[in-house]
């Protein structure tokens, strides 16, 4: 069995998620290689050895400088056609999802996504995918090779095994349409702001709050509980609250003792960032919201009525 792991990098570092998937691939066995695509990334590639890559392929080209998916599909497709891998694994991310799906179309290869585990059963790779708001676990397989897999954010921890990888440079050529999209501005979020990663209690607000002005409800409750305030991607993108407070796939991953979700539907994008919380409380007026399927205590009700009352009760309890 030969496995190739897509190694994503940012500012000269391989991402933890990619290294986690690489560690898992090494644990599953067989020949394990990584691939780094970018411009000036030789140094980055060498970071993969200790996590189980025997070989790291480096596709170094100016067209790969910006983290855009389509030129990466070209680079990977050529490498895979050339060397013939059984498995190609990705740690889920905005970039990796687009790369993996583009590659699936290009190679007519099966892609299973949102996997929370990988195992070998009867010599075949099997993925575990939670479905229908995680109410059922589906064992998924592939009918042909290469088998493409996207692993859910934060599933596998990187494990150092102490090896070193041989680095192999690979040439790349690009399709016309692949280099048509251009990165005009690659902005970076400000690093300051309250740290929600260390908080024991988090009160989070979503679109169900109705407007940015209603975040005061969330702030008051967080203050009463001695906790921090978090937000969903939807409200951050809408400009209601700063990016530094965003929990979810494209934000932070948190695991407080108590997580109170106010007006949050529980989309998968948010869920992956907070499902490790100790106790999850949800307040939402939609009884069908997915969040009710993975919370410990759910209130079907109006956040504008329930949250202020809750704040008052917590205050009087602490005061009395």
């Amino acid at each position, binding site marked *: 069995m030969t496995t190739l792991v897509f190694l994503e990098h*940012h500012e000269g570092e391989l991402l933890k998620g990619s290294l986690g998937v690489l560690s898992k691939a090494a644990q599953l066995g067989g020949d394990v290689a990584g691939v780094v695509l970018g411009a000036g990334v030789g140094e980055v590639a060498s970071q993969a050895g200790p996590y189980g890559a025997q070989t790291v392929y480096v596709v170094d080209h100016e067209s790969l400088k910006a*983290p855009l*998916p*389509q030129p990466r599909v070209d680079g990977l497709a050529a490498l895979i056609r050339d060397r013939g891998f059984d498995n190609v694994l990705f740690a889920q*991310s*905005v970039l990796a*999802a687009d790369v*993996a*799906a*583009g*590659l*699936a179309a290009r190679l007519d*290869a*099966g*892609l299973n*996504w949102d996997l929370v585990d990988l195992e070998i059963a009867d010599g075949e790779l099997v993925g575990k995918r939670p*479905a*229908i708001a995680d109410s*059922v*676990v*589906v*064992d*998924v*397989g*592939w*009918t042909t090779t290469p088998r493409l897999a996207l692993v859910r954010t934060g599933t596998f921890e990187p494990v150092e095994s102490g090896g070193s990888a041989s680095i192999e440079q690979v040439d790349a050529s690009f399709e016309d*349409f*692949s280099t*048509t*999209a*251009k*990165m*005009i*501005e690659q902005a*970076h*979020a400000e690093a300051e702001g309250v740290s929600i990663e260390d908080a024991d*209690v988090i009160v989070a607000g979503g679109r169900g709050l109705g407007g940015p002005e209603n975040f005061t409800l969330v702030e008051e409750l967080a203050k009463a509980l001695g906790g921090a305030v978090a937000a969903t991607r*939807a409200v*951050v*993108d809408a400009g209601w609250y700063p*990016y530094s407070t965003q929990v979810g*796939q*494209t*934000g932070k991953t948190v695991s407080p*003792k*108590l997580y109170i979700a106010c007006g949050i539907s529980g989309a998968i*994008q948010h869920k992956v960032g907070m499902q490790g919380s100790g*106790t999850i*409380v949800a307040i939402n007026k939609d*009884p*069908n919201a*997915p969040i009710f399927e993975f919370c*410990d*205590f*759910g*209130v*079907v*009700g109006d956040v504008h009525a*329930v949250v202020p009352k809750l704040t008052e*009760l917590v205050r009087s309890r602490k005061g009395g």
Partner: protein
Amino acid sequence: MRVAVCVKHVPDTAARRIDQATKRLDRAGEGALNSFDANAIEEALRIKDAQGEGEIVVVSLGPQRALDSLRKALAMGADRALLVSDEAAAGSDLVATSHVLAAALERENADLVLFGQQASDGDGAVLWAAVADRLRRPLISQVAELTVSATTVRGKRQTEFGYDVIEASLPAVVAVSDAINEPRYPSLKGIMGAKKKQQDVVSLADLGVEPSHAGEAGSRTTVIALSEPPPRGDSIKVEDDGNAAEKLVEFLAENKLV
């Protein structure tokens, strides 16, 4: 400018279950337009409004029932609907779905193809990239702000590291995030008018797609087994009758969380 919006008819949230026999999502019941696709339809309407002219065609792959979702899009203001419906396409995975959808989109030859952020039933958020590759067009995904000119499209999108601005020349494929807009509700006039708008239903043969490229035959992934997830423990759900906050504080106190 012609804008094609890809939409999906999804099962009702409350009724979502997997059919143990076929291991597919049970699609019985009425179903509805995938809510994330409403953002893509809304964005198409805004583009047409801003440009003062153009045509919006909504495209779907699904059972006949999916016409309900397409009609909703027409009621919102889209001009025309195209449904690809064929028994042989049932159970299509990403590779097969993207093949069929790309064939339909090739026929439409739109300047801009829009997708919503995800399907609420499959939790998948990858189809657009497969379709863009098959159409050989540039792609911008997760777009929270979109600017369209006569020849280019520019999208601002959020990633794990902050906000990117990406520009591509038309024709292009764009997937929008649910933060991009608030979809309008269809007006009564819109609902009445939708009935008269063109609604085409085509088969795989009409699109020139071999059955071997669709459905299970064209798929490269398979479902092996279904199982219960590890239990998370007992979950309590209360309707707020005015006392929910009290019950919640009691729960928090019992668990020493307050």
